């Protein structure tokens, strides 16, 4: 009752101001019946949909609402709200009692003030009013629950503040955004996300693999001197292979070259696979010391080999979860929008201007970019109709050209693969006794050369050692330029050009990686047809790890070199000389696809190599940190703002799809390695076993019998077949539900159009009637 009377007074006082029943807000529209006479079009502001949106209705809690406990929920636009209209309209709320809210709901309402579209002044008033409103105190258990919620809320707030505070590189991102827009900034956000991912996975490896191994590390050579048994020839380096893989105690010197190549002291350390033990650490509860004897008498044991493999598996699982979570939204949008429109023009109109740009020059370029995009989308629509009318001859010619160019590209890929293959062979042949008994059947002339070699010879060695990797890196730089040149002849649409050049670059990188891996395979598996004295490497996993190490280092150094010593002078030339030719050669743009591939390539090598070199994720972590600054330099200093409009959603889906492809490739490679290749016999966590899986399998066999039976149950037909049927049914159910929803959406859309027509009709009739009555 009191509310209605208050309303009466206020509407009498404020002529021309609307009072929607809630004392806090005032509308600028004259929307009572008098005002309607002055401005008939303003009747639309009386509509409930408008009132609901502007927050002019106050939500009164009923008993049902109290059951809902979502604190941060926004006001949904069609939530059932009871509202008090001003006089003259039907009041839906009985004025029997004013509902007094209890503390908890007042507290909830406070958080929802933030989400109202009001000015600060009005929000403050609202808050004051809420605070001074009469509240019911909560009793007993409810009070406890509320306090609990408050505490959790506070913790969540502190956590989000902490997260925001430790976010890396915020100022750099802001700088890049301001100059280049959010599309390019999305690349750096992606880089930061990969950095965090690597942090987490490296942490997993440190905790589960490296620390236990550090605790039980024994010097490799001492271990060999102690073991005087028959296994000596297998587990330890024999005397004639003194100069090969293992650290020679007699030499004692610490060579800088060893760090770069991963040989020498690094080889037997925990950096590579070879340094890890296959023991089991046990903790006994009978007496109080830790010891590393055999596990039979202990209650808890920690199998280092199983830990190694499970750490790697956990690493991949975590990565998969992160990737899926990050790309889920893109896929969800794609799936939902499947049959619908793409909102291309609305996206251009409403989402193309980055509000974060603060540079004059970039804004001019951005204007031009938006203009170009608008023009080209209109024209492509026209061209598409034109394209369907293209003459047959022209189409035939274009198709012939495309076939020829694809063939050329294929030839180029094969050639580059062959070059890498050759170089790798040469590098291994020249390897001076480092890896003896390579199955090339050649007598190695440098076998007997001992301690002191001249430095030029060492450099020569180094060059041939790194030759295949330098070649891979050079090809990765040169071939994309060649492909881009070829693309000009193919006459695809611009969007398709980007896609196809990306696919070709991915093929190039994967091809080089595959060649490398296949060479490793043939070296590692001894070729029994060749001479009998050739055995494989004593510790091939360490060898593989070293190759990956070299590849990563070469890649990083090449990036440094290209950015600072090649692109930077080009940029300087482009600034100081106004010549057209110079500008053509020297002006660079920050091409997102190429740089995204760089990072993803690094990450792929990290994933594949992590099994053979556990410290590789850590190394890649450090490299990524530096890469951020290298890429930032390339972006801010060397490049000028791009003329192509890069939207963030397009960039993000590009990065995620490339990352997913690489992830799948690395998983396939590692699975093959686990399944087919047997571990080496003399080093590492899995020495002497047939496959890598034997280690966790044997530790599983030692578990208590009920646990084993429980796990075996999952493999029996009694479980699998019903499970299979249930899953199929669930799949069908979800598919049916989603299909029904899609149909429902179509129906509702049509209904909405009809309602809109109805509304327009009624409004025009109202206007006409009003005009008629006026006359």
């Amino acid at each position: 009752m009191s509310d209605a009377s208050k309303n009466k007074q206020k509407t009498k006082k404020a002529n021309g101001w609307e009072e929607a029943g809630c004392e806090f807000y005032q509308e600028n529209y004259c929307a009572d019946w008098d005002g309607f006479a002055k401005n008939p079009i303003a009747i639309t502001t009386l509509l409930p949909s408008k009132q609901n949106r502007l927050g002019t209705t106050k939500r009164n809690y009923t008993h049902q609402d109290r059951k809902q406990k979502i604190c941060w929920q926004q006001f949904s636009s069609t939530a059932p709200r009871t509202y008090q209209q001003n006089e003259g309209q039907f009041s839906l709320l009985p004025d029997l009692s004013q509902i007094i809210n209890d503390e908890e709901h007042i507290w909830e309402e406070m958080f929802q003030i933030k989400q109202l579209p009001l000015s600060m002044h009005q929000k403050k008033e609202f808050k004051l009013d809420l605070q001074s409103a009469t509240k019911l105190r909560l009793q007993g258990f409810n009070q406890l629950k509320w306090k609990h919620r408050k505490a959790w809320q506070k913790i969540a707030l502190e956590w989000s503040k902490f997260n925001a505070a430790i976010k890396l590189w915020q100022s750099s991102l802001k700088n890049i955004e301001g100059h280049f827009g959010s599309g390019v900034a999305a690349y750096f956000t992606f880089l930061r996300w990969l950095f965090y991912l690597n942090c987490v996975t490296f942490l997993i490896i440190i905790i589960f693999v490296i620390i236990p191994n550090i605790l039980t590390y024994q010097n490799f050579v001492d271990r060999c001197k102690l073991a005087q048994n028959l296994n000596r020839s297998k587990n330890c380096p024999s005397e004639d292979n003194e100069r090969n893989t293992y650290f020679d105690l007699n030499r004692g010197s610490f060579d800088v070259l060893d760090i770069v190549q991963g040989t020498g002291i690094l080889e037997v350390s925990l950096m590579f696979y070879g340094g890890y033990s296959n023991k089991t650490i046990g903790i006994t509860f009978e007496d109080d010391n830790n010891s590393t004897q055999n596990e039979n008498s202990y209650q808890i044991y920690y199998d280092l080999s199983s830990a190694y493999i499970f750490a790697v598996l956990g690493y991949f699982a975590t990565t998969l979860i992160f990737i899926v979570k990050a790309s889920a939204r893109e896929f969800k949008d794609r799936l939902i929008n499947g049959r619908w429109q793409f909102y291309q023009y609305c996206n251009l109109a409403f989402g193309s201007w980055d509000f974060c740009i603060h540079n004059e020059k970039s804004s001019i370029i951005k204007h031009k970019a938006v203009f170009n995009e608008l023009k080209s989308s209109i024209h492509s629509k026209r061209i598409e109709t034109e394209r369907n009318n293209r003459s047959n001859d022209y189409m035939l010619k274009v198709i012939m050209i495309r076939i020829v160019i694809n063939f050329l590209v294929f030839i180029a890929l094969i050639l580059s693969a062959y070059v890498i293959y050759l170089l790798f062979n040469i590098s291994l042949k020249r390897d001076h006794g480092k890896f003896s008994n390579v199955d090339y059947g050649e007598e190695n002339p440098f076998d007997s050369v001992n301690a002191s070699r001249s430095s030029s010879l060492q450099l020569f060695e180094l060059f041939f050692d790194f030759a295949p990797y330098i070649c891979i890196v050079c090809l990765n730089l040169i071939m994309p330029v060649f492909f881009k040149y070829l693309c000009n002849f193919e006459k695809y649409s611009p969007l398709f050009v980007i896609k196809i050049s990306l696919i070709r670059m991915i093929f190039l990188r994967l091809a080089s990686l595959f060649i490398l891996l296949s060479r490793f395979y043939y070296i590692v598996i001894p070729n029994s047809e060749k001479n009998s004295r050739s055995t494989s490497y004593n510790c091939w996993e360490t060898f593989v790890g070293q190759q990956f190490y070299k590849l990563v280092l070469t890649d990083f150094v090449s990036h440094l070199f290209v950015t600072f010593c090649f692109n930077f002078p080009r940029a300087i030339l482009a600034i100081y000389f106004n010549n057209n030719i110079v500008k053509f050669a020297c002006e660079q743009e920050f091409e997102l696809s190429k740089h995204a591939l760089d990072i993803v390539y690094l990450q792929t090598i990290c994933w594949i190599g992590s099994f053979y070199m556990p410290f590789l994720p850590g190394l890649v972590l450090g490299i990524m940190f530096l890469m951020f600054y290298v890429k930032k330099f390339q972006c801010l200093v060397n490049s000028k703002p791009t003329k192509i409009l890069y939207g963030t959603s397009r960039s993000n889906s590009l990065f995620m799809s490339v990352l997913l492809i690489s992830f799948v490739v690395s998983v396939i490679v590692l699975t093959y390695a686990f399944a087919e290749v047997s571990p080496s016999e003399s080093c590492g966590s899995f020495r002497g076993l047939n496959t890598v899986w034997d280690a966790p399998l044997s530790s599983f066999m030692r578990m208590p019998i009920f646990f084993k039976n429980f796990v075996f149950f999952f493999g029996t037909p009694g479980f699998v077949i019903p499970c299979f049927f249930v899953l199929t049914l669930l799949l069908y159910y979800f598919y049916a539900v989603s299909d029904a929803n899609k149909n429902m959406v179509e129906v509702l859309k049509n209904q909405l159009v009809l309602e809109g027509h109805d509304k327009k009709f009624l409004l025009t009739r109202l206007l006409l009637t009003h005009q008629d009555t006026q006359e």
Partner: protein
Amino acid sequence: MGQTKSQFSDEELQDYEDLTFFSKKEILLAHKKFKSLAPEKVGHNKNAKLSMSKILQYPELRVNPFGDRICKVFSSSEDGDMTFEDFLDMMNVFSDACPKKLKAEYAFRIWDFDGDDMLGVSDLKQVIERLCGSENKLDDCDMKEIIHCILAEADFDDDGALSFPEFEHVTDKSRDFLNSFRIRL
């Protein structure tokens, strides 16, 4: 830091923190940026009202084609002059933590040039013109076609203009909006 903190009482800071998506540190940072636009005036009165031309000196707003509309929408006196509270409101809406619905609401108000609570053909025309910039002009028939395409995509009830629910739906689906409608503090 001590000097700026003494300008705001703890209670006021707590108020601002409760009513926006910022933390206390960010609010003080916002005040610092506001002060840098007109140091003496804000030094006297921490909630001073600055004229639109001064506000438009802020780097992101200066190059923004909708700068004047932004000022008008957020100004409490509707003429483009903003106090610090208005400025805080503005940065609040443009911040990362702001929910989609609030951003869509204010974006709608910014782009509603004639103030009739709908994005009609004239509104859309002005939006596109401003986006392309003063040097690049689209021909009439191109412009008509673009507007026609936009309405075909977004106007569900077929009344020739975009109402707010339609606008909200469209910006929800096009994810670029959320990422581009943002100014970092």
